[in-house]
């Protein structure tokens, strides 16, 4: 079972790893984007951590909806509404249970990822965060470690892709050969699940 504390840890671990990797994310966003993905997410997850401290939400669902709302209010760009929607919808799908089991979480996260696909219109293979999130959700039944590997492989697999969504799509063929920054940050988010579990 995953309790409220686990979901808090998920967010704070994500915040720490986004902070650590911000420069790399921004660097990935330079050749095929506008060089802000790392600073965008750092700003967002710093705000999430602060909000969790301040508001002390008491259920897993409340933790994630609060986190999602904060991302929407502070990140901007494409990733703000997308990650915000991911967490908000996942949180909503969790309802107001005090603890949730792994299966319910996997379903909820799938609902979140579906919402992201609907909002942004991206499908797997478009070279976006979806390419890390979908494989991760697909493997979630096998545990957080499996999901993490799937997300990381999904992120790496974006390198040879031709971008069809987001800024990178403007580059056409020239987007090929660069790993997608959003897929990379999604892999961090999923990796944080395993780390939060271990703690």
């Amino acid at each position, binding site marked *: 079972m995953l309790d409220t504390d686990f979901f808090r840890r998920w967010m704070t671990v994500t915040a720490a790893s986004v902070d650590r990797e911000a420069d790399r994310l921004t660097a990935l966003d330079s050749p095929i984007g506008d060089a802000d993905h*790392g600073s965008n997410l750092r700003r967002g997850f710093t705000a999430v951590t602060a909000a969790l401290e301040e508001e002390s939400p008491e259920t897993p669902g409340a933790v994630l909806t609060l986190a999602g709302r904060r991302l929407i209010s502070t990140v901007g760009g494409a990733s703000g509404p997308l990650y915000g929607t991911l967490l908000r919808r996942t949180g909503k799908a969790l309802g107001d249970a005090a603890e949730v089991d792994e299966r319910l979480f996997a379903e909820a996260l799938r609902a979140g990822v579906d919402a992201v696909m609907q909002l942004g219109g991206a499908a797997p293979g478009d070279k976006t965060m979806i390419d890390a999130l979908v494989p991760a959700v697909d493997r979630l039944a096998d545990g957080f470690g499996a999901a993490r590997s799937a997300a990381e492989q999904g992120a790496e697999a974006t390198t040879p892709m031709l971008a069809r969504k987001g800024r990178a799509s403007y580059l056409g063929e020239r987007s090929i050969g660069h790993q997608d920054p959003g897929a990379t940050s999604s892999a961090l988010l999923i990796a944080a699940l395993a780390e939060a579990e271990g703690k």
Partner: protein
Amino acid sequence: MKMLINVPETVVADALRGMAAAHPELTVDVENRVIVRQDAPVAGKVALVSGGGSGHEPLHGGFVGPGMLSAACPGEVFTSPVPDQMVRAAAAVDSGAGVLFIVKNYTGDVLNFDMAAELAEDEGIQVAKVLVNDDVAVTDSLYTAGRRGTGATLFVEKIAGAAAEEGQPLARVEALARQVNEGSRSFGVALSACSTPSKGSPTFDLPAGELELGVGIHGEPGRERRPMMTSGEIADFAVQAILDDLTPRNPVVVLVNGMGATPLLELYGFNAEVQRVLAQRGVVVAHTLVGNYVTSLDMAGASVTLCEVDEELLRLWNAPVRTAGLRWGV
């Protein structure tokens, strides 16, 4: 890259403080990042709200004022603003006649303005949206995020702003904005990449002796790189790219826009070449604007925008405007 800043984190807030000091005719909410014309809401008048990432100044904050925008929401550098800003702006300027959101076509801007529109409508504000997507360098297809919004934004904001100032209703202002966008096309080139404060170094490498054709305004590289061309060759290429996509039956207003670091001396010289090509192609020019209006931080380069205008649009274009960045007739 050295920058005239304190720390990257406060660049936008610092600029807003400086804007507030220089423009007492604007209400600048530094904390919430909203720039509003001081007399808003204007009774009975449709309000125009735009916004986008910072780094394109004077767009959009410099276009707030009588005859143009009611409010602008600056995001972080090259990052679309968040819905909270847009909702706050809409609430501050709505007189009950409704609000038009002017949105440049970038995924982030579209998503955030969409969310804001829903939230504003929940608050009882009538919202219409117009998407600006004039950049012919991007193929508008299922396989891209669609054409980017660049120089045409100025035309949409100016012409729709004039219509709103005259008291035209929301549906009409929205239709005019759409018409302006549909009749506008842009093409940009970069001679150097720009550096964002948070990255601190050029966003892409552009070797000496090469230029990027078809760049956007966010430090994105273009679609094609070529050996350096003369100003005349660049004008030929840019105007050709536009006229491949737009066959103006009416006169056009021309914007020869600097990306930030190109001297006005060069922009005027480039304009001479743009006018030459337009004359050769039989395009009638109603008015020309040369300067730094839709910039990309310290990028060197320029863009050309043509905006086809019928008599009504030209009249609205020429109508008085009083903003920090564009000002005439008042």
